[in-house]
């Protein structure tokens, strides 16, 4: 049996000599970057395409959303408020040179949510909760002009186009790998959508300030809503990159800068809100 032997096998010849953490970092970094770039490109493309959908089509599409929007209020007091909001919106629309085919439909909701939103088909919803926090018509006009600017720039349909494209892409990716990885892939893929709507918000703010200037010839009270929110939210503001809207401080600062650059009058006077607008 002399011709048979078991030599000592050197250690480590069967394992690639890479540190597991280095392997991990390279893989996570590389694949994240790849997905981010792909989703970014896809959402940009989808957004560009969605912009070309005629407004007529967008309104027809919004028809299916109508049951989700607040109904025409039954109470005469609420109806009066809605009419006032609609008139304000139309005035602002003229100041903003809204194309004639873009019609605005303002909905009033008696809910005490502190919010206003713009959605597909030129629908704007204003909540009583928002109106109650505002000191003047100027402040309300700023919020409404912001929403109108979203519609003017076709942001709702662009967001929807992007949302669908990214959702399809991620759900087709989700077929790969196990649960933990799917979650991670989806999380990484959602990042660019959030930061894109942020730039849209900034665009809408800038347009709204111009509209304020044209309607009231000053931008007094434009920051009132954000100042109110900043007061309410002393703690727990989410990290700027993760939130859709730019940070409140950032917005107040931007409005203040704009106001300074446009300062023509010593003390701009704000138009008060009519008495019937405040909730009892």
């Amino acid at each position, binding site marked *: 049996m002399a011709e048979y032997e078991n030599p000592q096998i050197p250690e480590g010849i069967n394992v690639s000599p890479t540190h597991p953490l280095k392997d*991990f970092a390279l893989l996570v970094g590389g694949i994240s970057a790849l997905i981010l770039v792909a989703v970014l490109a896809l959402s940009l493309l989808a957004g560009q395409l969605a912009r070309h959908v005629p407004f007529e089509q967008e309104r027809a599409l919004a028809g299916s959303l109508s049951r989700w929007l607040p109904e025409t209020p039954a109470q005469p007091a609420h109806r009066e408020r809605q009419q006032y909001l609609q008139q304000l919106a139309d005035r602002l629309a003229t100041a903003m040179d809204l194309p004639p085919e873009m019609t605005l439909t303002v909905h009033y909701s008696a809910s005490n949510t502190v919010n206003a939103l713009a959605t597909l088909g030129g629908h704007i919803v204003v909540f009583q909760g928002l109106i109650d926090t505002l000191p003047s018509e100027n402040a309300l006009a700023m919020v409404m002009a912001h929403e109108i600017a979203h519609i003017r720039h076709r942001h709702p349909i662009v967001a929807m186009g992007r949302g669908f494209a990214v959702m399809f892409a991620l759900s087709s990716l989700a077929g790969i790998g196990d649960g933990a990885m799917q979650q991670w892939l989806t999380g990484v893929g959602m990042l660019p959508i959030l930061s894109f709507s942020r730039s849209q918000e900034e665009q809408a703010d800038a347009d709204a300030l111009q509209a304020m200037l044209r309607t009231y010839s000053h931008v007094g009270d434009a920051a009132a809503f954000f100042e109110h929110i900043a007061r309410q939210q002393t703690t727990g503001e989410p990290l700027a990159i993760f939130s859709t809207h730019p940070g409140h401080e950032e917005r107040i600062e931007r409005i203040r800068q704009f106001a300074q650059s446009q300062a023509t009058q010593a003390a701009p006077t704000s138009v008060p809100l009519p008495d019937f607008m405040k909730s009892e």
Partner: protein
Amino acid sequence: MYDLILFLVLLLLGYVFGQRAEKRHFKSIIEREQTLRDILVFSERRIPDEDQLEGILVSGNVVISVDFFKRFVASLRNLVGGRVSSYESLLERARREAILRMKDAARRKGATAVWNLRLETASIYKGAQNAVGAVEVVAYGTAVRQRR
């Protein structure tokens, strides 16, 4: 957000405990390989001088679980291809441990060598989604001792 935190905690646990277990296991494997070096192992099917020897079937098997970290790295590796180094060390441990257990069985039978060594691997939980997989390695061969 909580899902992400849970995921990162699992990843960290998998890494810390997985690496510690692996380091300890390799240390123990190297030690035991030294003590069992006198049991020779060959893959040769024909046993020389078999008329003077008697053969006994010996086997050793081991099941080692994949940790969460290794599994995640391997699933990423699946996307881009290449050497799955996180599984390479896992399988090496399993193979060497199975051979050690087989050698141990041979020693208890009073054998001096094992011929015709065969190794088989099986993946436990194969195809089961969201389950941490485990690998089994079986080593078996013919242990020989002098005919009495």
